[in-house]
């Protein structure tokens, strides 16, 4: 794979409204299969950057290329489709639709992602395998998402992000709602799956202690000012 998984160039973005927060990123490249930890203070724009990568918001100028496609060249629907097919997303917490079953939640992205659907011919079986690999108890698939513990919910979110093997995984502080032991356990499982699938991982955190697990650690300050190669 020659193309970078994520490639930002001369990006300028600000939220709508006068005096709203803005970001400018001269350059940021993440290679395929690379795992990157993005550190930064609260309010420094980490989540904003992830939104840009996901294509839920669009930069006012510059290029945001994800999996080899410049998002600016796509229509709104095209960006939604591109995100569904190429990016698995894990939030900090409240990842799941509480009223749906675990299986509903895991299969949800496939509904919007034809490519991922193709890569996953037997979605129920795949979901069960992912749950097992992530150490979730048997029979969890039919449980209501809201009935799970927070740690379990985060693991379900990982299964959902991984299903159909999207090339890129984006995680916004996925461990901050977990205690230290569950954090370590969670990261072990996550990295195991990321390695197995060979996915690119961009994780946001303000906890530098997990840095050794990653190929590369970036701080928001670096990304914004100097740009990172």
């Amino acid at each position: 794979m020659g193309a970078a998984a994520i490639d930002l160039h001369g990006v300028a973005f600000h939220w709508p409204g006068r005096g709203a927060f803005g970001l400018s990123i001269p350059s940021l490249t993440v290679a395929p299969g690379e795992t990157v930890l993005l550190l930064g203070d609260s309010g420094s724009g980490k989540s904003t950057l992830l939104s840009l990568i996901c294509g839920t918001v669009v930069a006012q100028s510059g290029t945001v290329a994800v999996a080899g496609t410049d998002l600016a060249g796509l229509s709104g629907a095209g960006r939604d489709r591109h995100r569904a097919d190429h990016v698995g997303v894990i939030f900090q917490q409240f990842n799941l639709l509480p009223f749906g079953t675990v299986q509903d939640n895991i299969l949800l992205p496939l509904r919007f992602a034809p490519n991922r659907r193709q890569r996953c011919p037997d979605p129920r079986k795949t979901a069960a395998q992912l749950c097992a690999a992530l150490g979730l108890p048997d029979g969890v698939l039919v449980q209501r998402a809201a009935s799970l513990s927070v740690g379990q919910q985060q693991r379900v979110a990982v299964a959902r992000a991984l299903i159909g093997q999207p090339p890129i995984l984006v995680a916004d502080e996925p461990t901050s709602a977990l205690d230290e032991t569950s954090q370590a356990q969670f990261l072990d499982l996550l990295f195991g799956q990321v390695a197995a699938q060979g996915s690119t991982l961009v994780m946001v955190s303000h906890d530098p202690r997990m840095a050794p697990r990653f190929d590369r650690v970036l701080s928001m300050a670096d990304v914004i000012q100097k740009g990172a190669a």
Partner: protein
Amino acid sequence: MLVRLAAASLWARALTVGMTILAIALSVALFLGVEKVRTGAKASFANTISGTDLIVGARSGSVQLLLYSVFRIGNATNNVTWDSYLDLADRPEVDWIVPISLGDSHRQFRVMGTTTDFFDHYKYRRDRGLVTAQGAIMDDLFDAVIGSDVAATLGYSVDDPIVVAHGIASFTEHKDQPFRVSGILEKTGTPVDRTVIVSMEAIEAIHVDWRSGAKIPGQTTPPDEIRQMDLTPKAVTAALVGVTSPLKTFSLQRAVNEYREEPLLAILPGVALQELWGIVGIAETALLAVSVMVVVTALIGLMATIFSSLNERRREMAILRAMGASPWTILALLVLEAALTAAVGAVLGVALLYGVLAVAQPMVDAAFGLFLPITPPSLAELWVLLGVIAAGAIVSMVPAVRAYRLSLSDGMTVRT
């Protein structure tokens, strides 16, 4: 899958959604109920008198003639002389003819003089005839048959004596010739329920001692003496006529209207009833408008519920967006949800209506003589249901568009 999730999302908010559904169900039941009562009332109104081909009276307006002859509202300005009546009765087109004489009252109820033929020929609700619930129709000169409302209101039973007042709402009573209740009619839902029926001769008998509306001073003819007198009526107020063949109706009507001896008017009861309903119908429209407003209110409630749910559901929408759902999907989900809510409400409303109808139908019939047929939903009612569902979807567009905007601007971060 999305539909199932939408249903699950609704289920998760069962309480508020349930309230909204209940409001819609009640409003739909009310609307369809009003519609049922309206058509029922119209049908029962149109069926106040049936089987009578023509009503003949002194010349006035057709609605006026209908009002006093059938509904006992208002008064005849003129009578039809007995000679004209006999002339009419002799015509070959006439199959049967029943005279009626109005002008006296008993308490708040009108007294109507007629012949016993009235009980054979007066029909309502297409083919129903008058039946006595107790006693029998009049046999003696001073017998009176009373309608069910008269009996119920005044607490009369068979053999009770009653006194007839001269004129309407007058206090000068015909004390000297007391009548006896010979029979009480079954409830009909027609003005007959509120009528005291006596013979034509009885009406004459009451007025033996009266001249031009005043009692002749000092004169009191005892009942036994009256029985010996010639009590042939001098005039009738109106006559109900049946023709030998329906084809003759119009020629007879023309003949009556062109009668030379006296200005007369013949009306077709069905036509006059429709004309009258056209006047009464304004209230009907108002009623309908009110029930439409109730439905609109319930739909606005639906809109408000969706609006207030938006905030707590921004998370849900952000998740869907992150998974690749387009803002249009979010909008469609909300609209679908509203349509689903409205549909459940509408169906529940229909069920509610039929439930109430099943219980209330006999009671309404007994109390108001209003028969509400329990028929499967008509095409028009199905359209109403579709309309409610569509309207639910349309009002939900307002919050849905807001959700669309929010889901565009939120990105991955939900700021609350």
